[in-house]
């Protein structure tokens, strides 16, 4: 008795779905409670390599590690593969740096209600980037398979569409029901960056609001960089173990980057800077203007604080906090 493979997508797999490779990598990791606190500059230099498969946490412009995206662009990482899973402003920033040449696409170049990124479209229409198609849930499910330590996971979407045709999924018949089901290959990113509210020095993390696919992402990735709004004491973590979402043994680096989600929305902290996000879209229309904009906002900045200071600094942050909490402040 055998399970026929009914159809196969023609897309390229940018990461090996074999859990034994991920296991072999895990085995080499020191699992002790070590101090993993370092600068984002150091973490990016040490754990993000040219050619790596990269994924970012959050949801495009919401609890997204945007400081890390800037740093990766600043360090001129190249030839990466990228998980375009619910990506919006993060994709836009990485496109600005021409960081990747392979993308697993679920949602790219778009900025939701804000429109489309002119530069990301140019880059994606240039032919410089190899694309395999998926859906948002498919990429979340591929990460779930990775976090489970298996090589695939079944889903019941994508059938009958070009999204399937240009994916690297397989359509089989379920051996239990005889019905058709799509198998998605596991995704084990080489490195991911996740932005959270709080982390301790060992990498125990907690965040508030939606988790999107970050729990799965942390479990699937070979190396995990955490940026956090605030470092907290390990005692605080141990005071409420039910609240820990990402455990230390998955984490390689902990970087305290307050406002690391700016100009996006960090729930219960600050709302997105819509004015500045609109500026991104506007300047992208003119490549010369955009080059100057990137020089000002990324390449010439020492760190994320400089970027924020150039765009309104503490006054801006205070206003964004008021906006997050729906507060009507004077003027």
């Amino acid at each position, binding site marked *: 008795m055998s399970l026929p493979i009914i159809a196969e997508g023609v897309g390229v797999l940018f990461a090996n779905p074999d859990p034994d490779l991920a296991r072999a990598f895990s085995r080499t990791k020191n699992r002790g409670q070590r101090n993993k606190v370092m600068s984002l500059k150091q973490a990016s230099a040490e754990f993000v390599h040219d050619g790596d498969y990269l994924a970012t946490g959050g949801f495009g412009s919401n609890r997204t590690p945007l400081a890390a995206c800037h740093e990766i662009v600043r360090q001129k990482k190249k030839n990466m593969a990228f998980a375009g899973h619910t990506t919006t402003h993060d994709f836009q920033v990485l496109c600005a740096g021409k960081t990747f040449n392979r993308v697993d696409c679920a949602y790219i170049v778009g900025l939701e209600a804000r429109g489309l990124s002119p530069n990301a479209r140019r880059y994606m229409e240039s032919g410089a980037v190899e694309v395999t198609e998926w859906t948002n849930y498919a990429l979340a499910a591929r990460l779930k398979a990775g976090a489970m330590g298996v090589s695939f996971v079944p889903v*019941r979407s994508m059938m009958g569409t070009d999204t399937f045709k240009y994916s690297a999924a397989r359509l089989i018949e379920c051996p239990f029901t005889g019905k058709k089901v799509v198998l998605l290959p596991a995704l084990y990113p080489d490195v991911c960056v996740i932005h959270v509210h709080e982390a301790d020095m060992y990498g125990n993390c907690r965040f508030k609001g939606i988790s999107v696919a970050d729990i799965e992402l942390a479990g699937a990735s070979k190396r995990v960089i955490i940026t956090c709004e605030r470092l907290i004491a390990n005692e605080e973590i141990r005071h409420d173990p039910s609240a820990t979402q990402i455990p230390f043994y998955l984490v390689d680096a902990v970087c305290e980057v307050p406002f690391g989600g700016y100009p996006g929305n960090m729930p219960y902290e600050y709302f997105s800077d819509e004015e500045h996000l609109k500026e991104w879209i506007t300047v992208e229309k003119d490549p010369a203007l955009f080059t100057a904009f990137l020089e000002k906002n990324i390449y010439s900045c020492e760190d994320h604080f400089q970027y924020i200071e150039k765009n309104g600094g503490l006054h801006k942050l205070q206003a964004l906090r008021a906006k997050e909490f729906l507060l009507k402040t004077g003027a």
Partner: protein
Amino acid sequence: MAATYQDYNEMEMMITAAARELEDNTIVGVGTGAPCAAAMLAQKTSAPNLVIMFEAGGIDPILPEMPITVGDSRTYFRATKAGSMADIMEAGARGMIDYTFLGGAQIDMYGNLNSTMVGSDHQHPKVRFPGSGGANDFASFCWRMMVITPQDKRRFVEKLDFLTTPGWLKGGDSREKSGLAPGAGPYRIITNMALMDFEPQSKRMRVISVNPGYTFRDVQDNCGFELLKAAEIRETKAPSELELKVLREEVDPYGFIIGR
């Protein structure tokens, strides 16, 4: 501002028509914009126990204002749960989500959608759009998929450049044969000119009512494929005074979507 409630624009007509399709005590998966406004309007009029979900994880918020993205903090403001994308999509896969609203650059006569690209070579698109996002998943899982879209020939096409999101696929029983869950599929297409469903056997798009001021002819003239006609084509009921009042004063007071 001083307009009487009898005046309404086409976006208001579409949002109102969409809201009326949402039964009470059901769940709807929405995005930003018109779908979100439609769900909010339904909650404040005919479907007070309608539950809103956002694909990024927001479940049952009390929306303080229109969200900018389906993952921003408004999408779980005073929600019953701030979950994960898997929570939402797997609730859908389990048959828990009744409705979803989707959109796209192109739609065909079976309600299939293209939100991926224009052109004929996937690796060299003439125009690159975002891709599926969660649309393919929502369309696969939710019982009734709806589309709110302007009626025009560039959008309603004979053949999609790319089939991103499944409607009834090739019509007939092709959707169920593809392996997608039976019983789910496109339900209503809501445009500025008309309301459409799908003829039960062929699964082809069919006009069931035309909006005030439009005829079937207008709809067909702005559609790139042949539309079926219901046995009786009604006139869509114009938005009521109450619907307009709620929409303008409570749902979208700044006119982000209805443009007032």
